[in-house]
């Protein structure tokens, strides 16, 4: 070991130097941003932002432009509060794993992390995170008139709440909507689908694989956040109820009809490879003009409108989810929220709350969206007031016809808190369902067999 240490030290020094060199450029820019920034809009809040000055907290986020924009503004937060924030970027598949390990072991590594709304049931059941009500009610920590909690999109707040208590503050979110090629639809005299049936027949009308255009595409790859992100909307629209008679139920006639619709459209009108696609792959295909329509996150609009890649700019339009036989439209409810880790000492919890309050505030939301100096603007801001800001609307409507109208309509009318079963066992249930959906899609099992098998597997989880 002794012969090894000096080498390591020398290398470490070199490492630090290299790292410093690599980050020098952006660091300068950030410094400049902090100096120029006007902190007055924050200082109008009747709280002492500096009350835990000198603390350092670590925040885990996923690599995504909406968090990058926030990271860029972090020096402003430091100037405002004296709190240092270290950001750690972790890919979405691992951030859940790493944060759960951190929370179970009560090590307090991450003061807060970008959290999956489906995990709050688990977090709250184990008291791993703090109910935010306490912090919202504490006048020394929050100025309610300034923060305006009610302005934050209600659907996202209810998604992050358990039994009426808020556990994670929504930062950025999305809804699923229909995205379609207006030029192709117009050429055939088609309208965006109002029902799932019409969506299927539109897909049939536009499906011309010989010209490399497929009718539709939905997420096919197995995963709680992949195929099990799209299927629940269909399930609900077919009248499915996850908690039938108080018991978690994933099979039955509604489920079979929903899964049959999904398998049908994927097999008949989607590219074969879509069985393994997640949404970036769908958006990539759509941007190359090979898919006529898809139903997925509204935030994918930025990819299909990226001038460096996309061939369909100016040909895109949007519509809300088609209605199912139940007469409902059901969008996804997704947002990355920030909870407070209960394992932290009090001062750090306060520092974390100040960070969360800053990140979720209307001012920071605007500064990371339409007021952001960099090239990528956010399309998932958490506040109704920002969505009504003419500057923001103008920017968002650049993504194509009806974008803001459809997104807001979906957010306000198509959300459904029971879109996915909100139980602490969700991670395991989500994976089981994802596997069942894929085995039906790949033809390994019949639709009924796949769902019945999933039900058999899920029952013991609910007992345990």
């Amino acid at each position, binding site marked *: 070991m002794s012969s090894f240490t000096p080498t390591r030290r020398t290398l470490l020094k070199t490492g630090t130097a290299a790292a410093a060199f690599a980050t020098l450029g952006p660091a300068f820019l950030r410094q400049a941003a902090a100096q120029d920034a006007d902190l007055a809009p924050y200082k109008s809040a009747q709280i002492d932002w500096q009350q835990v000055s000198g603390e350092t907290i670590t925040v885990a986020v*996923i690599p995504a432009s909406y968090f990058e924009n926030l990271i860029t503004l972090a020096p402003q937060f430091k100037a405002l509060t004296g709190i240092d924030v270290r950001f750690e970027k972790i890919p979405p598949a*691992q951030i859940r794993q*790493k944060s759960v*390990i951190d929370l179970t*072991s009560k090590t307090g590594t991450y003061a807060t992390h970008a959290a999956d709304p489906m995990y709050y049931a688990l977090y709250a059941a184990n008291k791993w995170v703090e109910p935010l009500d306490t912090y919202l009610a504490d006048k020394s920590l929050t100025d309610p008139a300034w923060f305006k909690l009610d302005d934050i999109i209600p659907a996202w707040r209810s998604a992050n709440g358990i039994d009426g208590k808020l556990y994670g503050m929504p930062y950025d979110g999305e809804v699923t909507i229909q995205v379609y090629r207006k030029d192709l639809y117009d050429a055939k005299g088609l309208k965006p689908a109002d029902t799932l049936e019409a969506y299927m027949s539109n897909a049939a009308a536009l499906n011309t694989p010989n010209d490399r255009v497929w009718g539709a595409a939905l997420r096919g790859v197995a995963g709680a956040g992949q195929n099990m992100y799209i299927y629940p909307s269909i399930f609900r629209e077919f009248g499915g109820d996850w908690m039938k008679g108080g018991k978690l139920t994933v099979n039955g006639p509604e489920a079979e009809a929903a899964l049959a619709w999904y398998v049908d459209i994927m097999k008949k009108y989607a590219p074969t490879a879509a069985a393994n696609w997640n949404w*970036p792959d769908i958006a990539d295909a759509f941007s*190359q003009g090979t898919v006529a329509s898809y139903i997925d996150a509204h935030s994918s609009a930025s990819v299909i409108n990226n001038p460096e890649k996309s061939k369909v700019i100016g040909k895109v339009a949007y519509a809300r989810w088609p209605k199912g036989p139940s007469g409902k439209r059901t969008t996804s409810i997704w947002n990355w929220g920030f909870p407070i880790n209960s394992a932290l000492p009090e001062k750090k919890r306060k520092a974390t709350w100040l960070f969360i309050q800053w990140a979720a505030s209307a001012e920071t939301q605007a500064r990371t969206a339409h007021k952001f100096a960099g090239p990528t603007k956010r399309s998932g801001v958490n506040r109704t007031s920002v969505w009504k800001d003419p500057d923001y609307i103008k920017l968002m409507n650049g993504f194509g016809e009806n974008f803001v109208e459809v997104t807001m309509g979906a957010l306000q009318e198509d959300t459904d808190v029971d879109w996915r079963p909100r139980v602490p066992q969700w991670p395991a249930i989500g994976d089981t369902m994802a596997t069942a959906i894929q085995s039906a899609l790949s033809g390994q099992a019949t639709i009924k067999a796949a769902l019945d098998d999933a039900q058999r597997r899920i029952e013991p989880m609910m007992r345990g």
Partner: protein
Amino acid sequence: MTAKRLRIIALLAISTVFLLAWAFPIVWSVMNSLKTDSDVLAYPPKLVFTPTWEAYRDVLFGSGSILPNLLSSVIISVGTTVVTMLMAVPAAYALARLRFRGKKFAGFYVLATQMLPPVGIIIPYFLVLRNIGWIDTYQGIILIYLSFSLPFAIWLLVSYFEDIPFEMEEAAYLDGASRLKTLWRIIIPQVRGGIAVTVVFVFLNAWNEFLFAVVLSGNTVRPVTVAMFNFVSVEQTLWAKLAAVSVLAMLPVVVLGVVAQKHIVKGLTVGAVKGGGRR
């Protein structure tokens, strides 16, 4: 004559098919790394295109530069390899030559540690490192890597040591050499090939490791295998950059492979032909 020729042609054809299948992903990555994002997505895939270094420039000197990550990987891999070899050579020698109680058990134990599926032991390792404050440190990751590289190295080296005729050692003892001196002067030069093979494999395993690294690393220590993953974001997959990082991450391994190739082939066959036994 013609039959023989036919057979050669058939063999060549089969080898070519296999070679193409194996080389394709690498060639594809190299090509994608030199394309722009719109060329990556083009259909039919462009075989002729104007190459650009943009992806490389971005991943090396852009805001999300992977240089610190490459350095992390080097420190971890070299550190793991050096420590492993320092401990594995004497251990393997002892298992091959010395007679001591529990030798059989020790030999089995070394192998048994390899039988656990790694994913099952991540959490305990995380807790151990957490308690001693070694999460996100080089010593922490190297310590954990030793847990699988050391048994592997010992297990590999034992067979090489066993192949050396005991008479060589005896001759050295007769000339008055001590055991350590014999090990250093007589034995080790004989197993150079084996040591080279082991070094390469231990280095490769550490360099390519992802599962442990993703859990045990953080902002300070983040090897390139983990950093690379950030190019697959929830918003989009940055194919060209991902390909560029893959190619960069492949380079040291390829270089090492080419340099050590002679030893690897020799090392692997020496053990095999003599049939000296791995117990």
